[in-house]
């Protein structure tokens, strides 16, 4: 009895533990102090915690983590594919023209042709374009 009174004093001083407070609410020791309603309130507000809560939570955590990691991999896969396509596209674009060696070879070939026909060359006229060299050996147009 004396212990209960000490406990009630501790309760009002805010020094009881949670276990002691539960004991006070359950044993209706607060009735004489006008706190029956508090005990009722505490008991009524108490939430029933599902017995399998931890298992359910962990199951969900594992599933969600797995799902999210799959999504992450998919996102990385898509990003890598786009990057690859861009790289290929840029590479193709850059290699579209002739290489310098090819151009040089063609130029030499063209010059050798003009030398072979040097006798018939009237006034050679050379036009340079980006990927094309046109050499007119004569101004006359013949059929």
């Amino acid at each position: 009895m004396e212990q209960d009174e000490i406990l009630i004093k501790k309760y009002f001083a805010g020094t009881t533990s949670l276990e002691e407070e539960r004991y006070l609410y359950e044993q209706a020791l607060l009735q004489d102090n006008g706190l029956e309603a508090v005990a009722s309130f505490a008991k009524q507000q108490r939430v029933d915690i599902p017995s399998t809560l931890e298992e359910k939570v962990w199951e969900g955590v594992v599933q969600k983590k797995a799902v999210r990691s799959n999504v992450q991999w998919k996102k990385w896969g898509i990003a890598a594919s786009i990057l690859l396509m861009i790289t290929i596209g840029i590479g193709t674009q850059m290699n579209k023209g002739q290489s310098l060696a090819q151009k040089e070879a063609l130029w030499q070939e063209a010059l050798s042709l003009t030398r072979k026909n040097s006798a018939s060359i009237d006034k050679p006229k050379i036009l340079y374009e980006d990927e094309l060299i046109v050499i007119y050996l004569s101004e006359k147009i013949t059929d």
Partner: protein
Amino acid sequence: MDVKKFKERILPLSTKMYPLVMRYLGDTNEAEDAIQEIMIKLWRVRNQLNTHPNVNGFALLTAKNYCLDLVKKKKPTMVRDSYELSTLQSVSGHEQFLVEELSNHVLTIIRTLPVQQREVIILRLVDELDYDEISELTQLKVAHIRVLVSRARQTIALALQKTYN
């Protein structure tokens, strides 16, 4: 922190945070979903938890912040005041009616308390949290929280005595 240690040390906090999460969300399925998300958040910072001085408090604070975010995202009509308690369950019978009336009366008194007293008394009485955990959640010192709880209990007792005497 590996899976085993996480399951031993952090996962059991699900039951500790359940009443708090339920108070904010008011639905068992939503509460379970929310706790899963909170646990994923805690899993991401698991290495910091090894050295944290108040892991329980940190986990509960994470839960509270997550719930507040969820509540903010809900439609305005669904928003609850952070201190508002879940609606008392409907009951039948005279005895249950009295219990409900008493509880409603306590709730009315709690609503009239100053903000800090109201917050700590709900965390203690409804969520059944330790003072250390309440300290982490409210950023108040334990000694101060004890004073607030003490004052709140005395105010509630006085108000009830006035009514029922």
